């Protein structure tokens, strides 16, 4: 039998929470905004962290640039260099930005900011106006470079019933030492900052 718990969700309630936007455009609200409008909003509400041109201030995230770096030693993963879907910008900025005042932006404002971020990433020209109608047509440059988890085939060698137990190598040498020797923050002697980053 059916569980008699919970109650029907009202349409207004679903609407209030159902703010996600999918790559195919499902979930986009009515609205539109231009690069120019987006630039103003961005400079006022976003640039203090992400930089005037999305280049990032200090350790705050970089949002633009980085094209051609993905195979390098220091990949810069931005909207233009890495993200597959335009919808993600809309969805994420609307749900979580500005950091500290989430979900305060109106649909037209989000459209405008997304237009500006696309412009900063060389995806649209400076007179672009983004709207619900033209939205799904805007593809991002790196979209084709994502593929589904294939570890079970490409890493098949890691399934290995009998790993070596004795005399597995002739000689062992140390190839790398910890870069940050004294990381325990409360022990007083802060070491160098390492190369990596927690994302």
């Amino acid at each position: 039998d059916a569980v008699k718990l919970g109650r029907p969700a009202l349409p207004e309630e679903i609407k209030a929470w159902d703010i996600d936007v999918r790559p195919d455009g499902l979930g986009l609200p009515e609205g539109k905004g231009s690069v120019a409008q987006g630039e103003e909003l961005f400079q006022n509400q976003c640039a203090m962290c992400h930089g005037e041109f999305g280049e990032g201030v200090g350790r705050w995230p970089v949002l633009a640039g980085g094209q051609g770096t993905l195979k390098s030693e220091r990949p810069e993963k931005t909207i233009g260099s890495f993200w597959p879907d335009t919808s993600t910008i809309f969805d994420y900025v609307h749900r979580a930005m500005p950091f500290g005042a989430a979900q305060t932006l109106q649909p037209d404002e989000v459209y405008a900011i997304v237009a500006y971020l696309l412009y900063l990433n060389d995806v649209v020209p400076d007179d672009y106006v983004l709207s619900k109608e033209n939205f799904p047509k805007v593809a991002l440059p790196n979209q084709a470079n994502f593929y589904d988890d294939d570890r079970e085939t490409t890493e098949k060698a890691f399934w290995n019933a009998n790993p070596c137990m004795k005399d597995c190598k002739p000689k062992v040498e140390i190839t790398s030492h910890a870069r940050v020797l004294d990381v325990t923050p409360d022990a007083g002697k802060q070491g160098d900052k390492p190369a990596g980053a927690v994302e």
Partner: protein
Amino acid sequence: AAGVRPAAAEATPDPDIVNIPEWTQALGAGVNNHPYGIPSPFEKDVVRREVTWLTASSESSVSFTPLYALDGIITPNGLCFVRHHGGEAEIDPARHRFMIHGMVDKPLVFTMEDIKRMPGRTNRVYFLECAANSGMEWRGAQLNGCQYTHGMIHNVVYTGVPLRAFLEAAGVKPQGKWVLAEGADASAMTRSIPLEKAMDDCLVAWAMNGEALRPEQGYPLRLVVPGWEGNMWIKWLRRIEVGDQPWGQREETSKYTDLLADGRSRRFTFIMDAKSVVTSPSPQAPLRAKGPNVVSGIAWSGRGTITRVDVTLDGGRNWTTARIEGPALPRAMTRFYLDVDWNGEEMLLQSRAMDDTGYVQPTKAELRAVRGENSIYHNNGIQTWLVRSNGEAENVEVS
């Protein structure tokens, strides 16, 4: 740091034995000194630690589990690592709601009270590992301590109801193939999860290690996604939407995708592969004496149950199978020990986990050969600690 001292008989009686200590003579505190108890003041250094320079702000950062000081298989609630993207939501449970909607026959809203009345409540022990655990170490040894290299993991008993029960109550339509899970925090965290997993072993949980979830772990409600990336275990869970395709959310595109050497990226790499680490000795837990010593460590696999852990003292030339001690449960942290008699010679300590699918934890070289060094996520390579003759340990890599 460490000072290795020889075992020796005392010549004169130990004052800590022949003099009656204050705690044997005078009464201690009463039984309700702390109605909610706290650790001994002598354990004050056993805490989570943040590495502030890793991130721009503490509200989007990580505080690591002090694995080097813990033992057994359960992580105490107060020491479970913390990863937030918009700070710790402090939610009044009376005001929390849980909604199921999307491609369902009957969208539903539940209060916390409703959820605790659902049939099918269960208890399960699972590890939760952040996909970025050990992510700093892709390009070589970086941070000196397993709290930092491996401390984005914890293991507790969850109490909750299968997500399936809620999906069935709402009635998933035939087109439903994915669910979106969303949190109520200031990041409104979202992840797409295949419906198959959602209907299999995911839990909607409100308790950890017997008590209510801790605020930093999603109080009052969290999604449990056994064996899969910690980021998918949505904290402060407020919503499940059923749909026919994934949502391409920021945390499954910009983040939690694995950039390989050829510039392409794997997505939907949900499962956490088998992995292990020696927690003691380790840089924060040096050896203090020659002679008998215990190599202690943890192993886990998102694919199933840990069946074996091997330990090497010589950087991988020769291996010995360690003892697994304590429950070895599927998708749960497992404790292993190797008793050694240490003569003070330098050691290159490693551990290698195997699970019941036959997967063997790879070396870092083997991993890099397939993935390069830019992946950030899913670094389950074998960790090496160099233990010097003075007992100090250091994070190194070996050929």
